[in-house]
Structures are given as C-alpha cells and as structure tokens.
C-alpha cells in the first residue's frame, strides 16, 4: 500500500469516529441522556474535576453493552491513524527527498492581489497535506500518545455520563490536531489551530453545569483568539511579502536570497515573525497569554493530558519550527522568543512551587516546559525544541494520567494536602509516576535529561543563545526538580492525610488505565536515546537519529550550527561536561531538598515557612489573573461596553430621537402658527365681515313671511307715492 498518498486519511479516521459518536452516540449510550439530568446533582457532591459518580460505589453502574462499542470505535479510529502514520513515515524514510505533498482540492480560491513589491499574485489555500520529517514526528506523537490516552479514558470516564459526547469531542480534537500538523499551508494550519481551540473549549467545559468550567472554557477560547488575531496579521504579512502561504513556497522564497537577515534592526520580516509568535503565545501558553492553561484543568484529566500537555499546546512550538526559515532571518524576534520562553519558564515554575492542587502543579509545569521549548527555538536550535516537545509528550502525558489515576483512587480529591502515603496502595501508579518525575527532573538516562540538557547547552553555546538565559534555564531546572518531587512526596510518601471514607475507597485503577501508564513510562525512559549529546561520542551515530532525521527541514541552520560548533572547537568539551554535571547535580540536590522537607510527617506545608512573605503572592499566581481582570475584562471590555452602550442610547440614538422631537416641536409650532396666524387672518376677515354685516343681518331674518310683508309694504309705498304724484 502506498501510505504516502494516503496521508489525507490520517486525520479522516478520527473525524469519522467523531461523526459516529456525535451523530449516533446517544443511541449507543442511552445512559448518556442522564448525563445532563444527573450532572447538577453529582456536581454538588464533588468539587473535583472528576464530576462523575465515584461516590456511587463501583459496580452499581450497569452500562449497556453498546457502550463497549464506543470504547472500541473511538480509540480504534486513532489506532488506524497511528498505523497509517507509521506506514507513511516508514515510506518517507526511504525517499531521497524527504517531503511528500498531497493536495485534495483547492479550499479558498484566490483572487488577484498585489504583493508588497507591487507584483500581481493570486491567493490560494489548498486542502493539502505535507509529510516531511517535522510533520512526521508530530503525527507520530499525536497518534501514539493520543491512542494511549483514548484507551486510558475508556477506563477513567467509565463512571461519567456523556461518554459518547466525551469521545466524540476527543476524536474531533485529534482530527483537527492532525490537520494542523499535516497542513501544507498557513491557512489550513490555522483551520486546525482554531479547531483544536474549539475542541479544547468543548472539553474544558465538558462538565458544563459547573460555572467554573464554562468560565475556563470561555477564557481559553478568548485568550487564544487574541493570539489568533496576531497569527492572522502575521499570515497576511507573509502573504504580502512572499506572495504565498504555502510552506514549501514561502521557505523557497525566504531561502532564495532575496531577503537578507535583519541583523541591522527590527524590520518587516521581524514584525511578521513577531505577529506569528503572538499566535504561538496564545496556543502554547506563553507570557502574556499563558493565563488560560492552568484554568483549563477544569476539563477531565485525559483532556489535560492529551490537549493541555502533550499535543495542542505544543502547536505554537511546531509553528515556529515550521517557520524556521523566517525566524532564522530575524535575530531580534528570535531573541524575543527566547526571552519570552525563559521568562515564562521561570515565572510558571515559581508558581508551581507552592500550588496544592495536583493538576495545577502539572499545569504550571507544562507552561514552564513549553517555555524551555521556545528558549531552544529562539536560540535557533529548532530540532532541540522539537526534541523536547517529543520527550515532554511522553513524560507529561504520563504525569497527568498518573495524577488522574491518583484522583480516581482518591474519589475525586485533588488537593495534595489531603493525600500522602499512597505509595503502597496504588503501586503501579506510583512506579510509573516515579519514572515520569525522574524524567522531568533531568536525571541522566531518562528522556527529559537528553532534551533539557541539550536546550541548556544550545542556549549557552549557540550564536543566538545567551548566558543570562542559560542561568534562568538552570534555576528553572532546579525549581522543576523541586516542585515535581514535592508533588511526589506529598502524594505518595509520609503520613496519610485523607479522611476515613476516602481512605477506605483507595484502589488501584483498572488495566485500561495502568497499561497506558506503563507504556508511557517505558517511553519516558527510552525516548531520549535517539538524541544523545554529541559529546557522548562513544555512542554510534544512530543514537543521534532525531537530529539527522530533522536535518532536511532545518538544513540551513543545521549547517550553520555545525559550523559554529566546529568553530567553538573541541576545547569546550570539558566545559560541556562540566555544565552537564552541574545541571545534574542541581536536579539531584533539589530532589534531596524536597525530600528533606516533605519526606517526614508534617502539619503545615513546609513551603510556607520557606517562602515566607512570598508564599501568598506565589499561591495567588503573582496576581496576574486579578490584574488582567481589572484591566481588560472589567475595565476595557465591560467598562468600555457599558460606556459605549450608554453613549449609543443617549447620544447617537438620542440624536435620532432628538430629531424626532424637534420635528414634532416644529410641527406643533407650525400648527399653532397655522391656527392663530394664518388661519387667524382668515378668521379675522370673517369676523370683520360679521361685525360690519350686523345691521344688515337684522333684516336678513330668512323668514319668507317677513320678506313678503316688506315686499307688500314696499309695493304699497310705491303705489301710494305714484298715486300721490
């Protein structure tokens, strides 16, 4: 089978799954009706995200057999995508030119327009897919991790209503995500980009009866829209500069030499890159638009793992990597990218230090890790950014799913202050999460070590890097190790701090949940071994497959980087070993420090004493939400809306009503004038006539007899006069 020409099917399987779920899912899962009816009652019992009926003890639910069909179709669709992806990537590997495009049809057709140079061009956006090394990494991550999370969710969501709705949305998400990463142009990428945002909105608000869930969904969508506005403008600029939005074409133009790197100052290319990056800060939760991601944890935990950790939030990193030809021409914007990444990394790590909600710690950790990816991309080490994206997908999905398993065991409890000593009660969850926490802390041999260490080294040594940013990265690494192990110790070690009823209920999760955990744990151990440092020259080149695989996409930079590395010379090997040792030592130190604080029994969270006056600020996330609310939501939007609304009613419409009033007023005036002056003159004439006619009227009685009398009298007088004469 020629999988390469069938790549358009890869996103289509999940779409078919989603359509099945959303159209006939209700019939497959009749209990689903009650999701809406029961939901409020259940929500009252549970504060946690796991809104479903854990309180209704296990085994009381009788799901129809057709529900198993849902649990089969939905992950099955992703499995098909995974198989087709594997086939396509295998075939791609055997091609000489590692790029394959399939165009289904012309989506938005063009009308002519003038580019910035005045040339006439035509706009076209195809429904087209591009499989190259970069997109192949993405589709493998999305379908592999996506499949495991789907399987996990069949267990995790078993007690929730709206089963079909959940899987419908989840499948729909995978469709949009695959469209995003497979698109061959910015417009289709944007379609996927907005689509994953929609699914994120729907899934964050899955427990829609909760106001907090609705609020979080809105916040996510609207904050993302702000980024999207930047993305759109960036896209238009790119279109106007290069005459196209198709990746291959744009890169061709940018690499053709007509554009020069904007080393002298912030030019039009830098502006374009900056606008695109604004889009990335929205989707990938960077400063200043990161605020939606922690709130997004209102969604069910598999959603947090898939969308808000492993895949969707990395779309911004992917997009920047995809636009590497542009960013390599814009050193100033790249520096901004690196700076924003570093600032986001340390800011969110500092917040993660003190959070008590297990999912919130992981959410801020995700924001922080995304910051690392942007540090790498900003330093020009695109392949390292993608490498960290890939390893992070394993260990962060693992940690989220692990935390879901903990919450599952704890009957919906998410506050780590009420956990403790779970180590032996849910051993599989513990062991796998242990692996994930070691991996993210950067202990040698596990996935996180390879990618994070490479980022630090690149930021330290690459031409676009910076020593100051390196130090920020190092401090963040220490914080990461600390907050992750604070989480581990609070959850699994020490004394149990939960109430009786919860304690009685604690149980290991079913196989549908623990098997994905185990597989992801294996991935967290092994995934990094295809990107070992160059320094480890004792290992054969095949241990560095990842970088070589991506070389065709980042060719230009790879060549430059190799050049730079040679210039740096071999004398730096000692330095590199030293830095590596330093970061490992810091990680181990931070873990031991966490152990010394939390490894024993405690009443008040030791971090409070440690951070002192800062504790409240950190717990309240530096008050960023409050400031944003005050400035933008209440001030600009609601305040501005109210003000303008009043302006509209009083001034604009007031003018219209005023014109109406004026018309009525003048018409009253005219009527008065008409009655008393114009008509008055007429009536005055009549009055005068009446007055002057008064004597005459005395005889004008209108009686025929009187007239006859006068007539007779007259005739008599006349005849008398004649007779006298």
């Amino acid at each position, binding site marked *: 089978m020629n999988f390469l020409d069938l790549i358009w099917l890869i996103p289509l399987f999940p779409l078919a799954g989603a359509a099945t779920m959303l159209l006939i899912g209700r019939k497959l899962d009749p209990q689903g009706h009650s999701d809406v009816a029961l939901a409020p009652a259940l929500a009252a019992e549970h504060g946690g995200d796991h809104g479903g009926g854990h309180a209704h003890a296990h085994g009381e639910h009788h799901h129809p057999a057709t529900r198993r069909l849902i649990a089969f179709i939905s992950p099955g669709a992703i499995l098909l995508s995974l198989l087709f992806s594997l086939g396509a990537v295998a075939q791609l590997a055997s091609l000489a030119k590692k790029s394959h495009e399939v165009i289904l049809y012309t989506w938005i*057709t063009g009308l002519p327009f*003038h580019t910035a140079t005045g040339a006439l061009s035509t706009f076209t956006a195809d429904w087209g897919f591009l499989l190259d090394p970069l997109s192949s990494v993405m589709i493998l991550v999305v379908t592999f991790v996506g499949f495991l999370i789907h399987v996990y969710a069949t267990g995790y969501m078993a007690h929730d209503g709206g089963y079909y709705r959940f899987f419908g949305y989840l499948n729909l998400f995978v469709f949009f995500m695959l469209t995003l990463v497979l698109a061959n142009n910015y*417009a289709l990428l*944007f379609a996927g980009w907005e*689509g994953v945002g929609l699914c994120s909105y729907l899934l964050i608000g899955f427990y829609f*009866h909760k106001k907090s869930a609705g609020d979080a969904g809105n916040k996510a969508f609207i904050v993302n829209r702000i980024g999207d506005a930047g993305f759109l403008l960036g896209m*238009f600029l790119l279109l106007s500069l290069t005459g196209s939005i198709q990746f291959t074409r744009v890169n061709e133009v940018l690499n053709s030499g007509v554009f020069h790197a904007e080393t002298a100052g912030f030019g*039009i290319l830098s502006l374009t890159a900056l606008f695109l990056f604004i889009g990335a800060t929205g989707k990938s939760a960077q400063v200043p638009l990161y605020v939606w991601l922690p709130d997004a944890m209102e969604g069910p935990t598999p959603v947090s793992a898939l969308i808000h950790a492993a895949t969707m939030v990395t779309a911004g990193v992917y997009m920047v990597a995809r636009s590497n030809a542009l960013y390599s021409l814009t050193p100033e914007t790249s520096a901004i990218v690196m700076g924003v990444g570093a600032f986001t990394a340390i800011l969110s790590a500092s917040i993660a230090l003190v959070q008590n909600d297990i999912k919130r710690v992981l959410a801020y950790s995700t924001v922080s890790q995304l910051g690392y990816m942007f540090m790498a991309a900003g330093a020009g080490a695109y392949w390292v950014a993608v490498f960290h994206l890939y390893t992070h997908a394993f260990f962060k999905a693992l940690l989220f799913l692990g935390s879901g398993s903990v919450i599952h065991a704890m009957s919906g409890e998410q506050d780590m202050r009420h956990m403790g000593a779970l180590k032996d009660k849910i051993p599989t969850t513990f062991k796998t999460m242990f692996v994930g926490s070691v991996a993210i802390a950067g202990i040698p041999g596990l996935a996180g070590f390879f990618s994070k260490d490479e980022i630090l080294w690149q930021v330290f040594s690459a031409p676009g890097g910076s020593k100051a940013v390196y130090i920020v990265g190092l401090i963040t690494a220490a914080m990461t190790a600390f907050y992750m192990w604070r989480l581990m110790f609070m959850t699994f070690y020490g004394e149990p701090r939960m109430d009786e009823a919860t304690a009685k209920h604690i149980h290991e999760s079913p196989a549908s949940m623990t098997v994905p955990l185990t597989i992801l744990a294996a991935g967290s151990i092994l995934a990094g071994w295809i990107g070992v440092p160059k320094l480890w020259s004792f290992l054969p080149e095949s241990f560095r497959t990842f970088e070589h695989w991506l070389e065709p996409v980042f060719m230009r930079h790879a060549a430059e980087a190799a050049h730079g590395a040679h210039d740096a010379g071999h004398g730096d090997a000692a330095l590199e070993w030293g830095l590596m040792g330093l970061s490992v030592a810091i990680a181990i130190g931070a873990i031991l420090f966490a152990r010394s604080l939390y490894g024993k029994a405690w009443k008040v969270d030791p971090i409070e004493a440690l951070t002192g006056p800062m504790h409240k600020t950190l717990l309240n996330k530096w008050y960023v939400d409050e400031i944003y609310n005050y400035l933008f939501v209440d001030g600009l939007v609601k305040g501005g809306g109210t003000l303008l609304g009043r302006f509209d009613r009083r001034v*604009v419409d007031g003018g219209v009503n005023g014109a109406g009033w004026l018309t009525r007023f003048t018409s009253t005036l005219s009527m008065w004038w008409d009655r008393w002056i114009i008509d008055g003159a007429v009536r005055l004439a009549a009055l005068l006539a009446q007055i002057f006619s008064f004597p005459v009227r005395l005889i004008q009685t209108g009686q025929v007899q009187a007239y006859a009398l006068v007539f007779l009298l007259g005739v008599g007088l006349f005849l008398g006069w004649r007779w006298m004469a």
Partner: protein
Amino acid sequence: MSPLSLALWTPLACLFVLLALPSSQKTAIKLWANISAVLGLLTMLPLITGYDRSNGGFQFVERAEWIPSLGIQYYIGIDGISLLLMVLTAVTAVVATLSSWEAIQDRLKQYYAMLLLLQVGMLGVFASLDFILFYVFWELVLVPMYFLIGVWGGPRKLYAAIKFFLYTLAGSVLMLLGILTLYSQHWTQFGTPTFEIDALLRLTMPFWMQQWVFWALFIGFAIKVPMFPFHTWLPDAHTEAPTAGSVILAAVLLKMGTYGFLRFSLPLLPQASMDRTIVQVVVGLSLIGILYGALVCLMQQDWKRLVAYSSVSHLGFCTLGIFSLNPNGIAGSVIQQLNHGISTGMLFLIVGVVYERRHTREISEYGGLAHRMPLFATVFAFAVLSSAGLPLLNGFVGEFTILQGAFEANRWWAAMAVPGVVIGAAYLLWLYQRTTLGQITNAKNNHLADLSWRELAVFAPFILWAFSIGLYPKPYFEIIERPVARIVERVRPGYYQDRPPSPALAQAPHAAPHTAQGGAR
C-alpha cells in the same frame, strides 16, 4: 417570460392566490405560504444553472418601456453579486415562512401576504438595472416591513415601526436627489432621458459633483446597512419585529445597502469612490462600527438586541471590504454578506425558539438550557461558531478574505479590524454561557421542550449552507470573480497589472515571485 422575470414575479402571483383563500382556512393559508416560498426557491434554479461564470456583465437581461417620456424602463438583469443575494433572499423566505408556523396566530392572511410582498420588493432591488425601477422596489420594501413590525411586533412595536420607516425614508429621499442629479446630467450631456445604469456609466462628471452625488447616495445606503452612526433604528426594529421579520431584516434588507454601494456608488462615481478623504471617512466609520458594535454587544441585557448590535459589527466588515477597493476586499464582502445572512439569521431564529416558549428576551431569565434542550444547544453552538468566524464554517471565509483585502489596502485597517474578531468571540461565547450552560436557575425553564422536527427543518438549510461555504467556497468565488473584476477595473483602471513597489516597503526584495501557486500538484 424569461427566467429572471419568472423569479421576480412568482411571489406576487402566489400573493394573489393567497388573497383568494378564505381567511378562516388557517392551515390552508400556512400551507400555501410555505409552498409559495419553496416555489420562489425553485425559480432560482434556472438562474443558478444558466448563469455564465465567465461573463462579468449582466445576464438574463430584459427590457420594456414603462414611461417612455421620462426614459423610465422595466429593465432587469443580474450579475454574480445579484445572483447570490437573490438566492439568499429565496432561501431566507423559505426559512422565515416556515418559522412563522406556530409563532403567528392572528391575521394570518395579511401576515403571509406581507411576507410575499416583501420578497417581491427585495428580489426587485437586486434585479433592477433601471435606477427608478430600483427606487420603486427599494421603497416598496419599506411598506410590508413597516406592517410586519407594527402589527405583529413586540411591546414597543409602533415606536420601532415608525422609526424604521421614517429613518430609511429620509435616507431614500436624499438618494433620490442623487439619482435625479445623474439623470439631469445625462440629459445635459447626451440629450436623452434615461435611468439606465449602463447608460449612466458613460457620464463624465466633474469631481465636485461626483462628490455630492456620492454623499447623497451614501446617506441612503449607509442608513440601510446600517453604518455607524446611522444604526440606531436597527436594534429597535430588530427587537420589536416578529422572528421572521428580524431574520429577513438581518439576512436580506441590510444587504440592500451594501449592494447599493457595489452596484451604484462605486461604478457610477469611480473618482469619488477612490478619493482619499471619502475612503478614509467611510473606512473610518466601518472600523468604528466593527469595534463599537462589538463592544456595545457586551453590555446588552436583551438577547435579541445583542444579536442586532452584532449585525452592526459584522456589516462593518462588509463595508470595510468594499472600500478596500480591491478584488479580495470586495469579493470577501459579498461572501460575508451571504454569511451574515446565514449566521445572524440563525441567531435570530434561536431567539425566536426560546421566545415562543418563554415570551421573554431577557438574557438573565435563561441559563442551563442545554439540560432540557440539548438539540437546541447544539444548533445554537453552530450559529455561534459560524458567526464567530470559525474555520470550516462560513464566517471564516468571508472575514479572512475581507481582512486580506483590507490588509492589502492599508495594514492599519486590518490591524484595527482584527480586535473585532476577538470581541466577537467574547460576546457570543458569553451569551452562550449565560443562556445555555450552567445550572437551570429559573424554575420556568425546567420544562421547556427541545426543538421540534419543524424547528429543526427551519435551521437545516442554514446549517448545511454554512458548512458548504466553509468547506468549499470556491464556487462562490467563481460566480463573483468577474463582476468584482469589473467593479475594480472601473474604480481602479490598471489594477490587474503589476505595479512598481511602494516606497513604504524599501526593505522588501526587488525580485519577487509572480504567482503564489507553487509546489506539487
């Protein structure tokens, strides 16, 4: 009879049949009204299939003397732009008629007669090629709409109906002055009386006169669109009108204004339309409309009023596109006019559904509707997403193309319009959350029935259309490409040639690509 005349007069013929039906036969009247609407839609088929996309001129042209001494003719014909708007009219008529089945209970015969008369007027506006004929249809539309609002409307119906009628009439009178100026110019320059559009295209007028005529027409069209600050009749008329009236008002009537710009202002007065000051004023008003309308939406307490203000914002995009004066801006504007009809039409139907059940439009009266009306919630979500311009639905295609055109004309315009997209999502999602999500807090909402089959059938055409435009907009672009090119060529001769680079972009490369389509195919 040509297909165009057939399409134009079928509703009137149906109206006569309707008048012959006895008032007591309510079901028969309703049935016939729906049949008439479907017939009206069927008469569009020959126009769609017979339309030649490669021809940018007027097609299905028909001409007959009317008042020869004054040069007034019965002269009709359509191009791609009018075709799309006529189809929109016919579809909207079907939807509006079916949506009235339960909502309207008294004076049925008169009600449906008004709907049919309205349809004749709207179709006539889009088909007329004689300025006086156009004016007659333009004014004809006012009458049935006045009665629809004034008789079958809400509590403040009289105020709203009179405001609507007088406000638009005031604009039309100025427009008539402009028309008469053109007429007298033609008389002086060629010695023959005519109101024919193609004849008036030959006029050569001094710039100052073009300017005066432009503003006279502008007031007439801008009130209809409505552009800021002429928009305040709209919230009142929309809010008080019966559901079908609001749907037609939003979907079609407002487009008469934008259509006027495209058909008359731009081609007849190219120099005035290109003038820097004029463009800046009109675009400025459009941008204000986009942001202002969106912000005002955020504080509305009345569901229907909110949707009405969203129209001000969306129509701002349409006029922005038109006065970008380039193919993408204008084509995007036409597509967006369709889209606005579809998405705002749906939003008004949505309000109609709950209003029929609860007889209130206060947003705070609702909440948690999804629990009792999941189907309604789904349809509402589609309407919201379509209106918010989500890709793969219709709204995105129009907005994207307009913004691209605006960007080409002036980067700042696009940059200033884009926040409108953000706030658009905000007020729609917030509306959705307040009415549909959350818990049911008002006991009166506890026993609401979900959408019936009939109601679902009302939404179906719009939903399907929204998807088809969003997924495959190409045919629409093909239909309007030539007519748009004609307008652009008229206003900016030589647009379709390469130009020297603008000095503002000294940074840009000198050798540039000439086509956008590269890559494998």
